[in-house]
């Protein structure tokens, strides 16, 4: 099951060249806005845009290095992303002293084990480790502390944390384990497709929203999301996905586009769910790791909800 990638694919170089071009364009536009609109003075929206663009340079750089190093580096990278996401999620979860051992197990047993299962490609256990075994064992550990105050809420919170940050996120590197006939050694491109479409959808929603956003789509959940941003962003992410059909195993632009539509929608809805959690806890951002964006989960929220669906669509229809 373990195979090394002999060389970086031509498609990977092309994708990164294209992404590089987009980033250069984004940096140029930001510089232009700073000069023409802000006139060199501080400007909340443009400064935030600048921070976002420079964070994107970092994120694409890290992802690019992992792509060049190959399979193991990708798995380690997503393990770290899960770790930082879980740290943010558990921080805002209601827990008490009695949950300490459950949280230790979440961080130091279930999180590494899930990624070991990705590494060795044991799909059967990978798909039930957290929904079944963590679900049973974590509340047992909390119950043994005999602390009963808000017990159900505490257990539910910890289970949500590992589902969102470990189980869902691990579906991204798990794409490497799918044996798709005629697509051997090219699975990294599935990750590229997922990340480009879902993150592209976020960016395009932001751009459309800033350019022509008027009507708020869910004002109580996310005051910055607009109908125009949603429609424009998801439509252009679908087109983007369709135009990338040649890197996928899906065989035609319309199938690639349809899958892109599904994951862009899941990403959008995932963002709403994660916003609801933030509003409930009275926080604006999940953390402060990524300048201009907030925390790790502020950037990952859409991927969290898109990855398992993308994984299962691909597995159900393209793995015999």
């Amino acid at each position, binding site marked *: 099951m373990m195979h090394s990638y002999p060389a970086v694919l031509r498609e990977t170089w092309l994708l990164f060249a294209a992404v590089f071009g987009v980033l250069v364009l984004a940096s140029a536009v930001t510089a232009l806005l700073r000069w023409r609109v802000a006139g060199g003075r501080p400007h909340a929206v443009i400064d935030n845009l600048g921070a976002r663009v420079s964070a994107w340079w970092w994120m694409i750089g890290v992802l690019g290095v992992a792509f060049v190093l190959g399979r193991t580096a990708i798995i380690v990278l997503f393990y770290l992303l899960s*770790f930082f996401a*879980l*740290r*943010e999620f*558990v*921080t805002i979860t*209601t*827990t008490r*002293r009695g949950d*300490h*051992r459950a*949280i*230790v197990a979440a*961080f*130091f047993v279930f999180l590494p084990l899930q990624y070991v299962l990705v590494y060795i490609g044991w799909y059967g256990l990978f798909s039930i480790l957290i929904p079944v075994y963590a679900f049973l064992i974590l509340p047992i550990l909390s119950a043994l502390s005999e602390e009963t105050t808000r017990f159900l809420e505490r257990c539910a919170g910890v289970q949500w944390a590992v589902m969102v940050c470990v189980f869902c996120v691990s579906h991204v590197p798990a794409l490497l384990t799918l044996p798709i006939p005629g697509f051997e050694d090219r699975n990294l491109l599935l990750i590229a497709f997922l990340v480009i479409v879902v993150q592209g959808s976020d960016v395009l929603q932001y751009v459309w929203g800033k350019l022509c956003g008027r009507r708020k789509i869910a004002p109580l959940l996310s005051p910055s999301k607009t109908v125009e941003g949603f429609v424009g962003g998801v439509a252009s992410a679908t087109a983007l996905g369709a135009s990338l059909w040649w890197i996928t195993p899906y065989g035609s632009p319309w199938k690639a586009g349809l899958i892109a539509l599904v994951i862009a929608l899941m990403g959008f809805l995932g963002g709403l769910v994660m916003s609801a959690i933030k509003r409930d806890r009275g926080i604006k951002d999940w*953390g*402060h*790791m990524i300048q201009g964006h907030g925390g790790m989960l502020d950037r990952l929220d859409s991927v969290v909800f898109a990855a398992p669906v993308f994984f299962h669509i691909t597995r159900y229809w393209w793995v015999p």
Partner: protein
Amino acid sequence: MWFSKLVARAIILFARLLTGMQARWNGCLPAAVQRVYFANHSSHGDFVLIWGCLPPDLRRLTRPVAGADYWNRSAVRRFIGRDVFNALLIDRSGGGHEGGATDPVALMKAAVLRGDSLILFPEGTRNTTDARLLPFKSGIYHLARVCGNVEFVPVWIDNLNRVMPKGEVVPVPLLCTVTFGKPLTLGAEEAKDDFLARCRAGLLALAPALE
């Protein structure tokens, strides 16, 4: 000593991985001003967080005040306390008589006169109760009386008590924040209880609202 510097860097790196260790300078800036940082105390790692949030050039001038009974108990603790963090170890048993060589206030005063900044936990011991703060010991007032021109900066450390509750051995990674508040100085005629109440209020003002 290069080894103790290396250990200090390793401890701070570990603390950063575990807690994210975000500094919020809400009432003052990290400046080369002589200060006494006073903070809530819930974990042995408290001073590491404050120390690590300071710019590296200020760390060398800032000494945590810690209990000699704890930090002298083994060779490793002695090394970490004295060599790595340059802690000012004080006798918490109350045996040192006022003005004597082991009087905590006299030791702190001597350090301040040498130009050091201090990190102080006025509760005196770790707070493991549900109360936000234990009653303050009066040492901070006596120190303020003899070091009139030093800024007393309240520092609220949030969440570290969840990282490693008392009695557990494995810490868990959770984000912690360290909030630095507005500096206080002792008023000319201010009474002990008034000053302690003001310090306490200044510290509590930095704590996040309860659920």
